[in-house]
């Protein structure tokens, strides 16, 4: 235990030292972080409170349905925490040099595991925890819950709920690594993606929200009753259901019925922690050795080497069209290409994103959203626009933010070569923008076609989509350069760092402003369109101009920040 406390003490001391550095830049960083995180938390709090109030007081869906929707949101939250921990755990528990160092010391492997798990959990889940806590406060404040409700919920229900997701992730990872040695990493990762996507699909298929709403609404206005018999039996085994049941009975003042769920969540967490400890004692070191072997034995002939047009030293006409005749551009492009496709965490996430786009477009196609009501039409337009923006922000966070950090320790080779850093920066910005723009336009055109929008709306959506692509790409690249982590080899960890969280929150703020600018003129546009049967595009010129101006402003500020940051001492 002593050695465990020693390492934890060392870590917390180095964290606190970093936090309270006495220089103006560090202070500004901490201050701006607090400001943005604070603002964001307040936004989530306010939204959670308003949504709860709207669903109960305006939509009158009743307490039971509200908590079933909450359960669905918590399921997505659980899967997100789980996947986040699964991905980051591989880097922190198996590839980190610190683990190699700790394992060489006379500390038990289970303690090394515990140390790295705690480190990993707080690193990869802190932003999600913040969102969850702010939402909980917003939800609780609607019901005027007493202070001890928050205390017990946060420490004995909410954090254990997140820990359950994290522990399941890490135990799963240990099992996966043992299997990976037999069936190969690529097959395993592919199967894992399929399993997770199926889990989400099966959950929503089993819970069937539409049918549930229909069943409950049969009893309208008596919808505040408990309709637990409508829950599919599978739900009883899911932690999100336990948390929801605890919340449902707590806000209804029935603590007697809330208590069993409270203990179920907490004791499950304790039990799983014990299981993880036992598993770690037995398997962690063994799987760490397997992971090290897999790293060393991974073949040098990657799948991409068969793509001859991208081979170094070869030049084809096709490649020439994209790369031009400049050897520097060609060298940079081919380097980035191979580094991307030889890193499973890169191409696999890319594949998942492509799959999500396809799922989104297919499910959009099956919806009937050609609504004849101006307000609902505005809402449907903006919700889909916001979803597209949110998706693009996630893509930019995952792939654009780490772009400069991926220069890694080897940045010396670029910095000492006759390559203008400005050119390197615009090379990264150019390719990232092109890819994101294409993605945005596919999403925009897909959704406008499904909605049956007129030509003006399609053009407006495409233009705004282009602005969003420009702003979010430049924002993430600029912030990614400012917060560059050249020592970090794992892009996932770069994309889940505090700098990345700040950039993501900044992009959420930008999207909220864009929606705020568009909402009233768009509503007027639809009103006139429905009432008079004619469209007046002039209503939209000014707001689109404002969106373009804000986006350009973000582009200039971010690019300036990025260009000055990339020149910093290396």
């Amino acid at each position: 235990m002593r050695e465990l406390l020693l390492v934890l003490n060392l870590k917390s001391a180095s964290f606190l030292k970093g936090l309270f550095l006495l220089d103006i830049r560090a202070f500004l960083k901490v201050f701006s972080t607090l400001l943005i995180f604070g603002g964001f938390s307040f936004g989530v709090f306010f939204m959670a409170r308003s949504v709860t109030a709207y669903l109960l007081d305006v939509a009158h869906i009743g307490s039971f349905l509200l908590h079933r929707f909450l359960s669905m949101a918590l399921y997505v939250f659980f899967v997100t925490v789980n996947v986040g921990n699964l991905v980051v755990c591989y880097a922190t528990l198996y590839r980190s040099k610190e683990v190699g160092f700790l394992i060489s010391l006379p500390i038990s492997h289970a303690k090394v595991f515990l140390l790295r798990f705690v480190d990993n959990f707080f690193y990869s889940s802190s932003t999600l925890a913040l969102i969850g806590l702010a939402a909980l406060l917003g939800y609780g404040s609607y019901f005027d819950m007493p202070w001890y409700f928050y205390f017990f919920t946060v420490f004995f229900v909410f954090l254990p709920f997140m820990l359950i997701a994290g522990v399941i992730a890490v135990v799963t990872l240990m099992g996966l690594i043992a299997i990976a040695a037999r069936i190969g990493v690529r097959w395993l990762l592919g199967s894992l993606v399929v399993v997770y996507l199926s889990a989400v699909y099966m959950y929503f298929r089993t819970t069937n929200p539409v049918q549930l709403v229909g069943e409950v609404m049969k009893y309208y206005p008596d919808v505040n009753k408990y309709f637990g018999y409508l829950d599919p039996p599978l739900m009883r085994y899911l932690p999100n259901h336990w948390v929801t049941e605890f919340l449902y009975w707590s806000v209804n003042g029935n603590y007697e019925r809330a208590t069993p769920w409270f203990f179920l969540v907490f004791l499950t967490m304790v039990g799983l922690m014990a299981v993880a400890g036992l598993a770690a004692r037995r398997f962690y070191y063994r799987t760490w050795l397997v992971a090290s072997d897999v790293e060393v034995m991974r073949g040098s002939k990657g799948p991409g080497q068969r793509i001859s047009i991208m081979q170094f030293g070869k030049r084809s006409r096709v490649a020439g069209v994209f790369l031009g005749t400049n050897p520097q551009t060609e060298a940079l492009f081919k380097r980035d290409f191979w580094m991307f496709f030889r890193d499973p965490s890169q191409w696999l996430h890319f594949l998942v994103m492509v799959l999500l786009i396809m799922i989104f477009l297919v499910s959009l196609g099956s919806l009937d959203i050609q609504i004849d009501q101006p307000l609902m039409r505005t809402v449907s337009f903006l919700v889909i626009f916001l979803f597209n923006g949110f998706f693009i922000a996630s893509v930019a966070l995952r792939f654009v933010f780490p772009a400069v950090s991926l220069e890694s320790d080897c940045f010396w080779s670029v910095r000492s070569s006759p390559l203008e850093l400005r050119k390197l920066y615009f090379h990264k910005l150019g390719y990232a923008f092109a890819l994101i723009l294409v993605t945005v336009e596919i999403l925009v055109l897909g959704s406008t076609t499904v909605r049956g929008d007129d030509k003006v709306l399609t053009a407006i959506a495409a233009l705004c989509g282009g602005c969003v692509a420009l702003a979010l790409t430049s924002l993430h690249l600029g912030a990614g350069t400012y917060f560059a982590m050249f020592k970090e080899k794992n892009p996932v960890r770069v994309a889940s760092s505090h700098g990345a969280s700040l950039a993501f929150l900044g992009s959420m703020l930008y999207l909220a402003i864009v929606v705020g600018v568009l909402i009233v003129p768009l509503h007027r546009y639809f009103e006139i369109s429905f009432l008079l049967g004619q469209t007046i595009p002039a209503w939209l010129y000014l707001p689109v101009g404002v969106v373009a101006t804000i986006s350009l402003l973000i582009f200039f500020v971010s690019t300036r920040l990025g260009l000055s940051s990339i020149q910093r001492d290396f």
Partner: protein
Amino acid sequence: MIELKHVSKKFGSLTAVDDISLKIEAGQFFGFLGPNGAGKTTTIKMMTGLYKPTSGQCLISGYDIHTNSLPAKRSFGYVPDQPYLYEKLTGREFLYFVGGLFHMSAESIKRKIEEAVDLFELGSFIDKRAEEYSQGMRQRIVLAAALVHDPRVLIIDEPMVGLDPRSMRLVKDTLKRKAKEGLLVFMSTHLLDIVEELCDRIAIIKTGRIIHEQVQNEAMRFNGQLETIFLELTK
């Protein structure tokens, strides 16, 4: 030619390099010595454009590395103290990448790679990814990369770290031959016997200042005394 004019570098209140001036001519083999933390790597990083000097000028082949960086960078090759490579690229791909950054054609890079394979005994390793390389292998690839564009100046920071005796001999012979061909070599190292064997001029730096300069030629040789001089001056 390398010329440092009153170069200083401060990190907050710490002065890492304090008013250094040096002039090294083409064809010279220059040894840059000093104890740990003396400012050797900081000086080299300023010379290669990785650090910006707080004051002063670094001229490489007559060009200021900070105000006229591109022609300056075209003229030198650099071997850093830690031979970091892109883990996912093979040695051959890394050499193509560096050659591309120096605007070399694919044919000339290919020729230089073939030379490097022989010169540094890279063998089949050149087609394995860097993540599989040993320290010595990385060092040889980085050295090959520094020479791929036929530079006029070679700046090397601790070139012998992690090399086995055979690789060390290989590197020493290559550097000696290149210097004879007119290459200016600026080498920072702790290995005094190597400095005695290779360098025809040295400077010793301590707490950011140059405290000693000496020339080694036919008339004036160190004769195993460099260690005594170094220990005396840096104690």
